[in-house]
């Protein structure tokens, strides 16, 4: 009995021990995604005899004689299933990696007709996780609300170009590869990694004999095979931004979970079995896990073997990766003169990015002998350049391709799998056994072996005079960068930059240090350090406003920077940041009014209610240059092709680029095809980080389109371009074919050197059950200053997604680590928000026009995250009278705040219960 998939009997039978997901993907059914492989996320949902299942949990042999339907079997881009149409029309996805699973589940419970039962969505979809959207648009899709405008141009809610492919499971992600097309003739080999069981140890012996002897094993790589090159997994425009402290495989391991060896085999199962056969003797070394202890004399120095200058480590002897200490004015005098002063220390935990697509890459050597790497990355060009550096190849000898990326959030601004597949591919080619080599991380590896968000301890002391004007601000940050310094300096400097610079204050001091420990490395995470520091500063200011008897909004209004001010942190003001526009005043007003206008859901009887707000500022572009080159080609038949280097990972830049070109050329968006994120097909791009997809790459794309338009109008002798040709002033239409003998191409570029600022203000009203510690968000509002809005629905989605992720960090999420070992190893042990966990957030736009961004727009991808946690903390403080200092504000922590403060009883009987 064979397995029937989408109506076709499969030629091969499943193997014992194989799960249905593994079988289906092996048979080429790429609509079935691997998100967790443990039954928690629902990305692999399929219908089995018409009923939805998580295919990763179903023994594949049980599908024999039964019918499987994937998202691809439900509908096609030209003939969508009703549920698929709803997801497309609602814009119910961003990266789209979870979408096929949502579609299948909804179709399986009969949401195709009148939509799902809106009252039962929370329960029915608790097994489908989405990290991008914050679920509002998913809810819309499930209940049949349409949000896109099919004919929309610039400023309209144009749908994502990939939408119909995403909802039908046909959009190819990183590992959805047709090998016969991409690397014909090459077999695919699979890599599994051996990881360190010690937090700090020297490898004294590795014996790979038994692993190599296992049939099907092609290659085993250890530190003996590592290029003698130090590098960083973090990628920036300048490779000098991050310390060179990492080897591909090292003979010293510095965290539990670090790579020790790799096995390359004919299939992943063989590779995994062989990994268990590698024998390693370790000499354990003293380890340090507390960053405060790590910088004290006598602590084990993790990178004492490195040259501080060559590796760019501030002080290896003290485990110091980076530090800043500086003061402007006189903080002591400012505090002494203050009428009110607040001090406190706030901490934030490790959190995981939670992108549904894990890190993965496949590499091969092409017919020209060049190394090709297809990988899930936000930064294909930076990966290309670093691979070239690492393996001593000219940049022209490496090609990096990113397909649609299944979520990033900063986690894919790193080189975490590409180096391994590249080394393996090159070695196999040298050995005369050319192959394509693939490495796909497991969800457990996403938790335990790749970087998380930097945990920080932030002490703040702030004073103000009786009018609420700040007299002094002192911020002291300790950032745990873990075993390697990737992104450690950048996150630290960025964290204390816009958070401090947004306030005008004559006396400021910032002390910040990023410190090595034997913990899992920390890395880039949405907000890039700002969220952690903003949590502390905005909490302290909230307390200060209380002490002064001022509203939280008023205190901000009296102290925030306004155009004309300098951006000051703890030294001379920076010169590359400017007010290209200013909407912070509007954002403050919008949120204050929105909360006053509508209190949101009613609070349950007996619960304490509170309101809170917080603000944040962010530079629209990372410092020290961000480059993009793009080209636009108009064919004589009117087809437009855009080539841009930046990657689409759910941030929506693909839509924005199409809109910008359609606007310049006066054509319908569906005439525009985008070729992106392939180092062979477009000009250089620093990559999709720092929210640059619109404001840097978008400017380059718009410039290229404008150049095409100008040339076209020159040829036509004036008029306006349309989808079909140029409309002359006299009303006649000249078709493109009459004007162009060959395709017309123009280039555009942008260096991102001038940078503007964007603002976010978040406000919430919460109810707190003092007896249980439960915090319920009754109302959530965020006002954003994103300049001219290119695509309202997409911008709303970016804001909601950032808010949703931030609410997770504020209330639910925390990676637990004991002696360097991560204990939260899967989604079931880690509370990533489900549909049931997130409230709807009202999103409001300030009305500004930016002087630097494309057509007046500003970036708005990571920023919405930053003010959310402090707004919630301030509301909890307002409700219960005790200030939270630690994230996440889980029920047990909030309950303890109430309980320990003696404020818990609501009635005599309950006092008895609590005090007994």
């Amino acid at each position: 009995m064979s397995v029937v998939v989408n109506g076709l009997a499969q030629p091969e039978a499943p193997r014992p021990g194989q799960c249905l997901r593994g079988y289906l993907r092996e048979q080429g059914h790429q609509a079935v995604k691997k998100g967790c492989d443990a039954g928690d996320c629902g990305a692999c949902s399929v219908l089995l005899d018409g009923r939805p299942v998580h295919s990763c949990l179903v023994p594949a042999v049980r599908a024999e004689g039964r019918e499987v339907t994937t998202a691809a079997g439900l509908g096609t881009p030209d003939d969508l299933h009703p549920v698929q149409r709803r997801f497309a029309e609602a814009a119910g996805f961003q990266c789209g990696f979870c979408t096929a699973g949502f579609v299948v589940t909804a179709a399986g419970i009969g949401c195709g007709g009148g939509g799902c039962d809106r009252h039962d969505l929370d329960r029915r979809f608790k097994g489908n996780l989405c990290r991008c959207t914050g679920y509002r648009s998913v809810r819309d899709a499930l209940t049949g609300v349409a949000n896109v405008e099919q004919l929309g141009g610039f400023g309209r809610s144009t749908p994502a170009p990939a939408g119909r492919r995403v909802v039908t499971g046909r959009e190819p992600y990183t590992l959805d590869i047709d090998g016969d097309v991409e690397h014909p003739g090459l077999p695919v080999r699979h890599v599994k990694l051996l990881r360190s069981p010690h937090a700090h140890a020297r490898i004294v012996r590795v014996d790979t004999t038994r692993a190599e002897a296992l049939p099907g094993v092609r290659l085993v790589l250890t530190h003996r095979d590592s290029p003698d090159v130090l590098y960083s997994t973090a990628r920036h425009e300048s490779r000098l931004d991050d310390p060179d402290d990492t080897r591909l495989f090292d003979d010293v391991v510095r965290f539990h979970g670090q790579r020790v060896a790799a096995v390359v085999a004919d299939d992943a199962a063989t590779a995994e079995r062989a990994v268990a056969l590698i024998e390693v003797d370790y000499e354990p070394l003293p380890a340090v896990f507390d960053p405060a202890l790590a910088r004290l004399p006598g602590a084990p120095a993790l990178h004492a073997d490195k040259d501080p200058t060559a590796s760019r480590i501030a002080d290896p002897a003290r485990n110091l990766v980076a530090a800043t200490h500086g003061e402007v004015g006189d903080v002591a005098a400012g505090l002494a003169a203050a009428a009110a002063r607040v001090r406190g220390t706030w901490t934030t935990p490790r959190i995981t990015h939670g992108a549904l697509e894990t890190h993965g890459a496949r590499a091969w050597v092409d017919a020209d002998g060049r190394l090709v790497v297809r990988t899930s990355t936000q930064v294909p060009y930076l990966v290309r350049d670093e691979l070239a550096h690492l393996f001593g190849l000219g940049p022209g000898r490496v090609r990096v391709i990113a397909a649609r990326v299944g979520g990033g959030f900063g986690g894919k601004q790193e080189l975490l799998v590409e180096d391994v597949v590249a080394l393996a591919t090159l070695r196999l080619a040298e050995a005369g056994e050319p192959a394509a080599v693939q490495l796909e991380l497991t969800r457990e590896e996403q938790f335990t072996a790749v970087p998380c968000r930097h945990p920080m301890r932030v002490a703040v002391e702030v004073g103000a005079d009786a009018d609420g004007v700040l007299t002094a601000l002192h911020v002291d940050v300790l950032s745990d960068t873990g075993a390697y310094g990737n992104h450690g300096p950048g996150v630290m400097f960025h964290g204390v930059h816009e958070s401090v610079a947004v306030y005008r204050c004559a006396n400021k001091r910032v002390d910040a240090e990023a410190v090595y420990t034997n913990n899992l490395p920390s890395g880039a995470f949405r907000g890039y350090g700002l969220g952690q520091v903003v949590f502390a500063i905005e909490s302290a200011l909230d307390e200060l406003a209380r002490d002064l008897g001022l509203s939280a909004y008023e205190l901000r209004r009296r102290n925030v920077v306004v155009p004309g001010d300098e951006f000051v942190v703890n030294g001379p003001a920076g010169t590359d940041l400017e007010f290209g526009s200013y909407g912070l005043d509007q954002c403050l007003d919008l949120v204050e009014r929105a909360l006053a206008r509508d209190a949101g859901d009613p609070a349950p009887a007996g619960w304490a209610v509170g309101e809170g707000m917080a603000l944040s500022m962010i530079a629209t572009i990372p410092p020290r240059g961000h480059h993009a080159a793009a080209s636009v080609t108009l064919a004589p038949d009117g087809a437009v092709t855009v080539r841009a280097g930046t990657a689409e990972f759910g941030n929506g830049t693909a839509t924005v680029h199409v809109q910008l070109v359609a606007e310049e050329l006066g054509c319908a968006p569906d005439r525009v095809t985008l070729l992106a994120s392939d180092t062979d097909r477009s000009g250089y791009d620093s990559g999709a980080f720092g929210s640059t997809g619109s404001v840097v790459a978008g400017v380059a794309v718009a410039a290229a389109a404008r150049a095409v338009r100008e040339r076209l109008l020159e040829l036509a002798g004036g008029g306006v371009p349309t989808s079909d040709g140029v409309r002359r002033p006299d009303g006649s239409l000249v078709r493109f074919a009459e004007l162009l003998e060959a395709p017309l191409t123009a280039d555009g570029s942008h260096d991102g050197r001038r940078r503007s600022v964007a603002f976010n203000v978040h406000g919430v009203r919460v109810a707190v059950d003092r007896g249980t510690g439960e915090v319920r968000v009754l109302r959530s509002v965020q006002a954003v200053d994103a300049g001219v809005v290119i695509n309202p629905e997409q911008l709303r989605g970016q804001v909601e997604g950032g808010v949703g992720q931030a609410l997770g960090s504020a209330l639910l999420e925390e990676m637990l680590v004991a002696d360097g070992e991560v204990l939260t190893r899967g989604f079931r042990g880690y509370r990533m928000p489900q549909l049931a966990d997130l409230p709807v957030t009202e999103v409001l736009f300030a009305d500004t026009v930016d002087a630097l961004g494309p057509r007046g727009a500003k970036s708005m991808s990571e920023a919405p995250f930053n003010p959310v946690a402090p707004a919630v903390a301030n509301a909890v403080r307002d409700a219960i009278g005790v200030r939270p200092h630690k994230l996440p504000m889980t029920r047990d922590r909030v309950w303890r705040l109430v309980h320990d403060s003696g404020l818990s009883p609501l009635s005599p009987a309950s006092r008895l219960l609590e005090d007994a």
Partner: protein
Amino acid sequence: MDLVEVTDHRWARTRADLRLAPGERLLGGGTWLFSEPQPGTTGLVDLTTMEWPAWEALPGGGLRIAATCTIEELQAVPGAVLGGAARVVHACADALLMSFKVAAWATVGGNLCLALPAAAMVSLTAGLGGEVVVWTPDGGERREPVASFVTGPGSTTLAPGEVLRAVDLPAAALAARTAFRRTSLARLGRSAAVVVGRANAAGTTLTLTAATPRPVVLAFPGTPPWVEVDEAVRAITDWYADPHGAPDWRRAMTRRLAAEVLAELGDVTPPWTGGTA
């Protein structure tokens, strides 16, 4: 996920088929077994073909739930069969972190054998005074209360070669008044504290799970005052710690939930609302 060391899958049809060779494991729904790597497991013996009826009415009014009964099948047992326990059956099924898509495959027996503190089928069957029916390797059978069958997080009294066949719920428990309360750190998250109560003329029983490493059964004659129940809860010293809640909070929540369950069983208002208890 793929279980990489597994090379054999056989379908069990008779009791003799359940004798395991080295490396073999019993496969129920598979929803846990396939959710984690299983080093050392080379063969799977599939229980689904034993074709045990999902549930059977027992002489005397009790209910037998097969180890292979899925959570979904349990939810479909007619209300008339479940009696007063119907609400707590559905509440426990909903308390599971898993999706309904997983509940269609996950089995009651698997949940019991996994024996996690948050195992909602342990909450249910211990809470209703259930007994496991275990097939012993000598061809015999033994019975044991669920509350003692589960000995700690992930551990039971199952000896090598033993097979969990079913769990029997007594008629008296099905006929009793029942109440259920749970809490977790996230709204539909993994349970951090669960209290199942049942009461009839003979007495009142509260069963605590999720907050304690193994089920704790508190039995009282008649209807006890809540102070007495609270004293019994407070006397418990072993509270569970994991990422789903701190032990001090779990203790406090269990006290609250116990008071609420007691109040519901006695049809009175819980103490902290200024009510009558």
